[in-house]
C-alpha cells in the first residue's frame, strides 16, 4: 500500500518537474525572443531628451532669451470619458469652449493635445481635477524676459521651438541642440528607477553686441518721437564706428516675442535692414566725399546757388531757401540741393556710382540677421536724363538705414567700411568660448584726409547755420547730416505730397567718436524736416547714451574727472 502511494507520489513529482522543465524550455529557448522583447517593453520607460535652446545675452551678460519648463496637457481618447460637469470645469482652464474642446478629441487614437505649455498654476488646477485620461508632458518654452525690448533683433520661436525670426533663426545651428531618447527601468506600477543619465540637451549660448540699457534708451526715445509726430514707423541703429558692433537696433512699431506668432506682419518688420527708402540729403555724403577725394572741390570752393533752382533733364530742382554764393562746406551744412547737383555734375555719374558702391550703397552690409536687403542704385548706363539731378540729392536710389549709418561710420573712423554685426560670441553651455566675431573686418574706402575734411563739414551741420542745430549735445560735438525725402505713393507711383521720411545720421563725440547712429522717422505729421523731427531724437538718445557709457564731456577744461551728484 505504502509502496503504491510512493509510486504515485514520485510519478506526480516527476511529472510536475517535467511540466516545469517543458515550460522553462519553451520560455527560454523556443519563445525567448518574443518574451524578452515584451519584458523589455514592460520594464523600460522611454523618455524624450528635453532640448533646451541656448540663452541669449546682451553684451553685459544680461539675459534676453531663456527657457521655462512648462507642462502640456494631453488626452488619451480611449480612457477619457468625463462627465459634462468635468468638461465645463476643464474648458475655461485651457481657454476653450466646452463644445469646441470635445469636438477636437477624436474617437480613436491614444494621444491628442488639449493645450500646450500651460502656466504652472493652471497645470496645478487641471491636475487637481484628477480627470482620468488626461496627462502632462513637460516641454520647454522660450521666454523673453524683457518683453518687446530688441524684439526685431532677438526674434522668436514657434510652438515647437522652431526658429522663426531674428537671432533665433540666424543662429539656430548654435542655439538648438539635438534631442533623442533616454531609457529608464521601471516596475510594474510604473515607478522609475534612477538611471543617472541627464535627459536634457542644452544648446550653445549667444552673446550679442546689443546693450540692454542703450537699447532701452533708443526704444524709449523712438516711442516718444512716434507719439509726438504721429508717425507711421521709426527706426534707429546705434553702432560702434570702429568695430561695427551694433549697440542698439530698434524699430517701431514693435511686438512682444512672447506672443510673436500672433503679432501682425508690419510689427515684425525689421525696417533697419529689410526696408528700403529714398535717403534724401543724407546721400550727399557720396557727392561730398567723392568730390573731396577726387580733389574737385575744397571745403572753401564756391558755388553760386543764388537762383535757388537748377534744371536737369527738363526738371527743375529747388532749394528750400535761396542761399546766394556759398562754399562747398555750406552746401553740405545747409543741405543745398542745387549746390549738391552742381558738385555731382562735376563729379560725373561714373564717379557718383563708384563712390556710392565704395560706401556700401546697393550692397548688403553682411549683418548677421536674416532678411537683409541690398538696396539699389542704378548703373550709370541706366541713368535717365533726370538722374544726375536726382541721385546727388538722394532720389532714385534705395538704401537701408543700416547702410547709411555704416557709410557715416566710415567718416567717423577715418575712412574704413566696417562690417556691422550683432553677435560677439558663441559660448558653450558651460560658458567656454566656441566662436567670436573676428575684429578687423574692414575695408579702406577713403583717404584719412578726406574723412577728416568731411568730418569737419559734418560738424558744421549741427552748429549755428546748419540744418541740425537741434542734434547738438551739451558737452560734446556732433557730426551728422539731416535727410528729408518724399515717399513714393504706391497708388499713383509718384512722389507723395504728404508722406515723407525724416532722418538724421551722425556720430558723437565728433573728434573721438564712440557711437554712430541713424534715426529715421517714417511719415511724420506736422513737420517733415530731418532737422526738426529726427535730429532731436538723435540728441536725446546721444545725451543719455554718453552718460551711460561714461564718455567725458569735452567742454570741461583740464583733466576729465569723476563725479559727484548735485
Amino acid at each position, binding site marked *: 500500500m505504502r509502496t503504491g502511494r510512493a509510486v504515485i507520489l514520485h510519478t506526480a513529482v516527476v511529472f510536475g518537474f517535467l511540466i516545469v522543465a517543458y515550460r522553462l524550455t519553451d520560455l527560454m529557448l523556443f519563445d525567448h525572443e518574443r518574451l524578452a522583447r515584451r519584458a523589455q517593453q514592460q520594464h523600460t520607460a522611454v523618455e524624450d531628451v528635453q532640448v533646451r535652446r541656448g540663452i541669449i545675452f546682451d553684451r553685459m551678460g544680461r539675459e534676453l532669451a531663456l527657457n*521655462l519648463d512648462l507642462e502640456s496637457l494631453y488626452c488619451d481618447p480611449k480612457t477619457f470619458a468625463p462627465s459634462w460637469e468635468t468638461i465645463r470645469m476643464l474648458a475655461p482652464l485651457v481657454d476653450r469652449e466646452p463644445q469646441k474642446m470635445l469636438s477636437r478629441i477624436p474617437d480613436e487614437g491614444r494621444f491628442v493635445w488639449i493645450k500646450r505649455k500651460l502656466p504652472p498654476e493652471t497645470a496645478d488646477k487641471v491636475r487637481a481635477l484628477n480627470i482620468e485620461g488626461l496627462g502632462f508632458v513637460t516641454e520647454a518654452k522660450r521666454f523673453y*524676459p524683457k518683453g518687446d525690448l530688441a524684439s526685431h533683433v532677438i526674434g522668436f520661436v514657434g510652438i515647437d521651438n522652431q526658429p522663426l525670426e531674428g537671432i533665433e533663426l540666424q543662429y539656430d545651428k548654435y542655439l538648438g541642440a539635438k534631442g533623442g531618447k533616454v531609457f529608464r527601468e521601471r516596475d510594474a506600477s510604473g515607478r522609475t528607477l534612477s538611471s543617472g543619465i541627464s535627459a536634457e540637451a542644452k544648446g550653445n549660448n549667444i552673446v550679442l553686441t546689443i546693450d540692454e540699457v542703450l537699447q532701452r534708451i533708443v526704444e524709449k526715445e523712438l516711442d516718444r518721437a512716434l507719439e509726438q509726430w504721429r508717425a507711421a514707423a521709426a527706426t534707429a541703429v546705434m553702432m560702434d564706428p570702429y568695430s561695427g558692433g551694433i549697440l542698439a537696433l530698434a524699430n517701431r512699431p514693435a511686438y512682444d516675442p512672447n506672443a510673436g506668432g500672433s503679432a501682425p506682419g508690419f510689427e515684425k518688420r525689421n525696417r533697419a535692414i529689410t526696408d528700403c527708402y529714398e535717403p534724401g540729403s543724407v546721400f550727399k555724403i557720396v557727392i561730398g566725399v567723392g568730390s573731396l577725394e577726387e580733389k574737385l572741390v575744397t571745403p572753401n570752393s564756391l558755388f553760386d546757388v543764388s537762383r535757388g533752382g537748377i534744371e536737369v533733364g527738363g526738371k527743375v530742382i529747388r532749394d528750400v531757401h535761396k542761399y546766394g554764393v556759398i562754399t562747398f562746406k555750406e552746401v553740405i551744412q545747409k543741405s543745398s540741393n542745387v549746390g549738391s547737383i552742381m558738385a555731382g555734375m562735376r563729379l560725373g555719374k561714373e564717379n557718383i556710382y563708384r563712390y556710392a558702391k565704395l560706401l556700401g550703397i546697393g550692397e548688403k552690409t553682411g549683418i548677421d540677421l536674416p532678411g537683409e536687403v541690398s538696396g539699389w542704385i542704378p548703373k550709370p548706363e541706366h541713368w535717365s536724363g533726370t538722374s544726375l539731378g536726382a541721385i546727388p540729392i538722394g532720389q532714385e536710389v534705395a538704401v537701408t538705414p543700416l547702410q547709411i549709418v555704416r557709410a557715416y561710420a566710415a567718416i567717423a573712423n577715418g575712412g574704413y567700411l566696417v562690417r556691422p554685426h550683432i553677435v560677439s560670441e558663441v559660448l558653450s553651455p558651460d560658458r567656454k568660448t566656441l566662436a567670436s566675431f573676428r575684429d578687423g573686418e574692414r575695408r579702406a574706402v577713403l583717404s584719412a584726409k578726406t574723412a577728416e575734411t568731411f568730418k569737419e563739414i559734418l560738424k558744421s551741420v549741427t552748429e549755428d547755420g546748419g540744418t541740425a542745430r537741434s542734434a547738438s549735445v551739451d558737452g560734446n560735438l556732433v557730426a551728422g547730416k539731416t535727410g528729408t525725402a518724399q515717399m513714393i505713393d504706391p497708388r499713383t507711383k509718384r512722389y507723395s505730397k504728404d508722406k515723407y521720411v525724416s532722418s538724421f545720421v551722425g556720430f558723437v563725440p565728433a573728434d573721438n567718436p564712440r557711437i554712430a547712429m541713424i534715426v529715421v522717422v517714417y511719415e511724420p505729421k506736422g513737420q517733415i524736416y530731418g532737422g526738426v523731427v529726427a535730429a532731436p531724437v538723435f540728441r536725446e538718445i546721444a545725451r543719455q547714451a554718453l552718460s551711460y557709457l561714461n564718455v567725458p564731456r569735452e567742454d570741461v577744461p583740464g583733466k576729465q574727472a569723476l563725479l559727484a551728484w548735485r
Partner: protein
Amino acid sequence: MIVGRRRSIGKLVVTPFLIALLLISVFALVFVRSQIVKLEYRLGELEKKKTLCLRERKVLFAEKTSQLSFARLEASSQSQDGFVLPDRLKVVQIGKHTRSMPSHASFKEKQLAEP
C-alpha cells in the same frame, strides 16, 4: 575510537555551519540587491523632486530677470524711490578721473568700456 568521535563531532558542527553560512550568504546577497533597488527607487524619486525644483528655479529666475530689466528699474526707481539716472550735465568735476576708456577712439583699442 576517539578519532571516529571527533569526526562525527566535526560533521555535526561544520556541516550545519557551512549550510548556515551558505544561507546567510544567499540572504545577504538578496538583501544587498534589494537595498540597491530600494536606493534606485529613492534616487528616482529624488530625481523627480530635483526636476520639479529645477523647473521652479527656472520660473523664479525668469521672474527675477524680468524684474531686473532696465525698463522696470527705471520706471520704479523714478516713480517710487526718487532715483535719477546718471546725467553728465549734473556731474561736478572734483578730481582726476580714473581712465575708463581709451583717450582717443581708434581701431587699436576697444572703444566702449564696460559701464
